[in-house]
């Protein structure tokens, strides 16, 4: 994917639109929104901190614009199905909430409108302060872009971080978190496991958590990947196998039943002081430092994820918001105004303070903020080094993810060996890619 050219076109359109606005005097949200007052925009939200943050800020938006945002909340695991059914059926959603692994899917089906098209169609709605270059390039590219086109603006943004219990580590004689995965297992593992306490917990439940948080997390740092350059399974390569075997071995330092743990269980075990280290999304910061839900609030410290032989490859995940093509003109205009407002640099700090994680570089420039929100340095560092195709983002991912979820968990349970499981995933993954037309040349090899 050519990130530079994509950013250039977008910047160009933005510049043109901005110029148009500059000529017509000062741009104001209220004025731009005036023709669309009373429009209702339907959008799917999740029950997560970033969404609650924007919901708290929403009344100001509605008051200024007269645009109503109708929020339909779903658990993450239902959100994709809900939106796919709505878009297939030509339903009511005006904004798509896109996890980075759904973007290929939504874009190829043309359920979402490229940002450039919106800007070209509604030049008067483009905020001169939009400044696309202010988004972390990796995040904008991975969460919002597909095939050299930007569709969505990054909204609810995560990087995998290492949360560690400083007190437990100090007690065991460590004055710093592990630098590498190997160190975590060989040195920290035995020292921190025992008496009902565990060194580490890796959420591995059989849903997207298994494929994203568990399987992929161990693949990349060891130099492995899902696919090779020909789009054949790379899971049997020495590197991929090393990563998956490492995960298997590391389980001795994790609580039993880790295969059934989702984020909630993992974060809770950490917050109760049962587990010394977890690798979790940045979004959990607010709950582990809240004394009401966390017994270890004072001990929480944050570092980037450990590195593997192939370097630091932290998990990457997050959501963008894009205008839905099924919306009518007024709804599209209103939807754009909302997306632009919710992801704006002007609102980024407030969003952060209310528990969201913005993707605006400018929001993190204030060193005072990094003192309050101790995850910021690790987050910013992670967003410099992430792999956009941490999980392939093409349209076939949801199907492949189902396969990874099934065989990844069976592998962890020891029902099949690592090699057998990887072979099984590989075969089924290639069947899916075959029928999608990647091998016959019908489809470009983009992930």
């Amino acid at each position, binding site marked *: 994917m050519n990130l530079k050219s994509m950013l250039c076109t977008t910047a160009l359109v933005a510049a043109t639109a901005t110029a148009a606005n500059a000529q017509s005097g000062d741009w104001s949200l209220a004025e731009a929104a005036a023709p669309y007052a009373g429009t209702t925009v339907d959008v799917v939200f999740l029950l997560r901190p970033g969404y609650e943050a924007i919901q708290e800020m929403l009344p100001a938006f509605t008051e200024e614009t007269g645009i109503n945002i109708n929020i339909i909340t779903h658990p993450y695991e239902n959100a994709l199905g809900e939106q796919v059914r709505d878009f297939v059926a030509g339903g009511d959603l005006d904004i798509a909430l896109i996890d980075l692994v759904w973007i290929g899917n939504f874009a190829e089906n043309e359920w979402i409108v490229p940002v450039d098209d919106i800007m070209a169609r509604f030049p008067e709605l483009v905020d001169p302060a939009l400044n696309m270059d202010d988004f972390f390039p990796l995040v904008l590219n991975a969460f919002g872009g597909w095939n050299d086109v930007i569709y969505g603006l990054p909204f609810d943004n995560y990087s995998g971080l290492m949360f560690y219990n400083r007190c437990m580590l100090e007690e065991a004689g460590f004055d710093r978190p592990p630098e590498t995965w190997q160190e975590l297992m060989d040195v920290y593992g035995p020292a921190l496991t025992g008496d009902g306490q565990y060194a580490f917990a890796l959420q591995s439940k059989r849903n997207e958590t298994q494929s994203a948080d568990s399987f992929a997390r161990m693949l990349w740092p060891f130099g492995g990947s899902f696919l090779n350059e020909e789009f054949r399974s790379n899971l049997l390569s020495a590197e991929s196998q090393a990563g998956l075997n490492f995960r298997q071995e590391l389980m001795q330092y994790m609580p039993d039943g880790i295969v059934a743990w989702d984020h909630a269980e993992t974060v809770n075990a950490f917050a109760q002081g049962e587990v010394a280290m977890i690798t979790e999304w940045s979004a959990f910061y607010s709950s582990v430092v809240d004394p009401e839900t966390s017994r270890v609030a004072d001990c929480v410290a944050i570092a980037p994820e450990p590195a593997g032989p192939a370097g630091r490859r932290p998990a990457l995940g997050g959501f963008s918001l894009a205008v839905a093509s099924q919306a009518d003109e007024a709804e599209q205009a209103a939807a754009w105004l909302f997306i632009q407002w919710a992801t704006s640099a002007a609102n980024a700090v407030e969003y952060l303070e209310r528990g969201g994680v913005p993707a605006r570089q400018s929001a993190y420039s204030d060193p005072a903020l990094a003192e309050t929100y101790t995850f910021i340095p690790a987050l910013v560092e992670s967003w410099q080094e992430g792999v956009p195709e941490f999980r392939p983002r093409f349209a076939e991912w949801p*199907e492949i993810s189902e396969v990874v979820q099934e065989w990844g*968990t069976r592998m962890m349970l020891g029902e099949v060996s690592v090699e057998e499981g990887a072979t099984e995933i590989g075969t089924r993954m290639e069947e899916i890619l075959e029928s999608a037309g990647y091998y016959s040349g019908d489809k470009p090899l983009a992930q």
Partner: protein
Amino acid sequence: MRGRTSRKTIFAFIGPSVIALALIGIAPLLYAAWTSLHFFNLTRLRQLRFVGLENYQTVLTDGAFWQAMGRTFFLLGTSLPLQLALGLGIALVLHQPGLTLVKTLCRLSLVLPMATTYAVVGLLGQVMFNQNFGVMNQLLGGADINWIGDPTNAFIMIVFWDVWQWTPFVALVLLAGLTMVPGEVEEAARLETKSWWMILRYVQLPFLVPGLVAVLILRTADTLKLFDMVFTLTRGGPGASTEFISLMIQRVGFRAFDQGLASAQAIILLIITIVLARIYIRVFYKEV
């Protein structure tokens, strides 16, 4: 013999429900049959094409599908005998004379599990069987059993809840059968023998057979349909240890979005259901 009724009259009585069921029951089925012959993936509708019986071929040769089917029947084979044994025991206790008040109370309590929303049973299971803060391990004397995260234990947990929810049904059906036994016949038998087994086998059993048949039919159908409770409790995990047939079809159709394949699976499930229902009804239920 009953007289003939005009077609018009018959239709006036039965027509509305036939039409209603045909529209809401058969139309979707036909649609599903059509889908099953196509490559029909919700996220790749542009590739929609006729593929003949390819989906069926995939299903019939897919080990995972038959494993899920086998798991479903294994669940039936595990929980139904338990339900029958416990249900019969409860029915026999309730059938004993005396202690009327407690027995009325007991009968009322038996109604509760059956009426409980299946999804809520699953949610309740999550709370009660949690390894750390679940009450189940506490009641087992502070055991540290990992229920939800271990394949065998998770299966046992599903059996537990299925038995909890449906044993009362079996018990009440069998109890009703027991009360059908004419009092004098039972008394006469009791004078003949002291063995409760002989009485059960030769006096009471004939009256229990119709109830047992109904239980068999309904439990088989409900196990093939089983979705809500498992969906909220384990979602089919860990691994695939509790992925029963309806969960699998839901996963293929609504999570992997392969509607063609899911429809083929659903049609095969439907055929199995109809064949089983036919056999049961032909063999045991000779009414109509």
